[in-house]
């Protein structure tokens, strides 16, 4: 069974600085997806970034980038130029590729990030 581990329950960062959130996962699958979702106090689950396992290039979305290390089964999220609006719970998630039927997301425990002014 797949598992996802986020070893940092809480983190804080000063506004405009850079922070990295860790995520490791365990799977015997070769074809899968990894995601980071953000959940601000509003409770909405917002997709931050997605990575296909077959792609060696790390995904980036504006200030958000990942460091995907497939052999090490590591998928960390880097947030550059942190903003107050980045304050949220961040979830790392794994999904096995299921073709055209969709698949279940397996979530980590979450990291509560506080951006301080």
């Amino acid at each position: 069974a797949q598992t996802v581990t986020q070893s940092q329950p809480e983190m804080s960062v000063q506004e405009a600085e850079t922070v990295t959130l860790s995520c490791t996962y365990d799977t015997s699958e070769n074809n899968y997806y990894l995601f980071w979702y953000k959940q601000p106090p509003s409770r909405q689950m917002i997709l931050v970034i997605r990575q296909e396992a077959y792609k060696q290039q790390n995904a980036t979305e504006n200030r958000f980038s990942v460091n995907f290390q497939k052999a090490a089964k590591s998928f960390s999220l880097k947030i550059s130029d942190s903003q107050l609006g980045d304050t949220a719970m961040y979830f790392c998630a794994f999904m096995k590729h299921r073709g055209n039927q969709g698949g279940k997301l397996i979530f980590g425990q979450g990291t509560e990030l506080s951006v301080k002014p």
Partner: protein
Amino acid sequence: DTAVSQTPKYLVTQMGNDKSIKCEQNLGHDTMYWYKQDSKKFLKIMFSYNNKELIINETVPNRFSPKSPDKAHLNLHINSLELGDSAVYFCASSPTSGRASETQYFGPGTRLLVL
């Protein structure tokens, strides 16, 4: 403009009651899901439907019954509510083709409190 919507947003009810949560998506996606987020914020899948067919059914008490009348709707009915059912329930949907395939988009959540 809403992508994935859920009603109601809040639900307070007594133990033993039966309640339903509705979910609708206007994204044209083929697959819809229900997730439960417990008091420690841990998220776990409950069900998934693809084109109105049940494809994922995790270990969930049979008091929970999903129903998908069409591709755009997935409702969750809960019988004989228990205190442990208190949680936030999220609906999500995903396309099964195209650039964003298999990316799940979530609704705003329904906070259920059983007294």
